[in-house]
C-alpha cells in the first residue's frame, strides 16, 4: 500500500514564535468583539453575523495551530472538518423557524 511509506507524525520545524503570534491575534480579535458589542456598532442581526464571523476566524486559528490540525495529513484534515461542518449545518436547518415566530406570527 502506498500509505505505508509515509512517516507517521510528520516532523516539522517546532518554533515557538507562530504560537505567540496566534495567541496575540486571538486576544486582539477578542478585544475587537468586545468593542463592537459595547459600541453597538451594528443592529443585532448584523452584530450576530459579524461576531460569528470573527468567532469562526478564531476557531480556525485554534484548530489549525493550537490543535495542530494544519500539520496533520490532508485526509485527516478533510474528514474531520467536513464531518463536523456537515453535522453542525444540519442543526441550523431549523434556525429559520426561530425567525418565523417573531416576524411572521405563529399559525
Amino acid at each position, binding site marked *: 500500500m502506498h*500509505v505505508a511509506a509515509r512517516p*507517521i507524525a510528520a516532523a516539522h520545524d517546532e518554533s515557538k514564535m507562530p*504560537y505567540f503570534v496566534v495567541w496575540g491575534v486571538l486576544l486582539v480579535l*477578542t478585544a475587537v468583539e468586545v468593542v*463592537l458589542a459595547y459600541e453597538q456598532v451594528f443592529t443585532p442581526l448584523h452584530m450576530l453575523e459579524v461576531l460569528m464571523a*470573527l468567532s469562526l476566524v478564531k*476557531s480556525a486559528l485554534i484548530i489549525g495551530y493550537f490543535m495542530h490540525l494544519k500539520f496533520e495529513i490532508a485526509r485527516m484534515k478533510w474528514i474531520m472538518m467536513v464531518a463536523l461542518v456537515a453535522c453542525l449545518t444540519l442543526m441550523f436547518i431549523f434556525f429559520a423557524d426561530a425567525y418565523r415566530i417573531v416576524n411572521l406570527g405563529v399559525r
Partner: protein
Amino acid sequence: MADAVVQHGVSGVYEPSLFGTYSKKIGMWLFLLSDSLTFGALLFAYSYGRISTPNWPTPFGKESIANATIMTACLLSSSLTMVLGVLAAKRGDRKGTARWILATMFFGAVFVVLHAREWNNLIHEGLTPFNNPWAANVPQFGGTFFTLTGMHMLHVTIGVIYLGVVALRKKFLPILLVLWALGFFLTPAGSVFHYGVHVILLAFVVCALVLFLHPKDYDDHDVEIAGLYWHFVDLVWMFIFPLVYLMSTKIV
C-alpha cells in the same frame, strides 16, 4: 500493556493508520467531534430562544463583560501555555512540561473561579433555571444560560483534573481531596457550588481507579492528547462568549 506492544509508526506487523497519526489521537478527535455536536445543540437552543423571543433579557453590564473578557483572556493564555507544554514534552523536557501544564491548570482554575463568581452574582439577582427576574415570561433564559455555561464549566473542571493527572499522576490525588474539602467548607451551605464541588470528589474516585489500576508514565503523546481536549474547551468558549455575553450587553 497494549500501549507498549503497539508501536505506531513502525512498519511491519500493523497496517499504517489511515489518518497518518497514532490511534489515541484519532480517538480524542472523534470524541471532540461528538462533543462539539453536544455544545452545538446547546448553543443552538440558546440562540433559537434569543432570536425567537423579543423581550430576551440583556443583564450583562460593564462589570460582567469585563469579567467575561478576563475569563476569555485566561482561556486563550492557557491554550498558549498548553502548546508550550506539548512542545516541551516533544523535546523530552519533563520538568518544563510539568511546569507549563501547571500554568495551564492555573489559568483554567482562575477561569472557573471567575465564572463561579459571575454565576453567584446572577443567582443573587434572582436568576434560576426556572425563573428570570428581568422578564418573567422568558424563563428559558435561565434554563439555557445555566445549561450551556454549566456544561462548559464542567468541561473546564474536568480538563484541569485531566491535566493534573497527566502532569502529577498519583501526587495529584491528595491535591484533589484538598480542593474538594476547600470547596465544600468555604462555600455557604445554600450555594449551588456547595453541592457542585462534589464533582471533584467523583473525579477523585475515577482518577484513583485509573491511576492505580493502570499505572503508567504519561509520554508526549498523552500530553498532546490532553492538549487537544484543553484547546477544544477554549474553542467552545470562543462561541459562548459572543453569543451569550456580547449579544446580551446591558448598555446604560
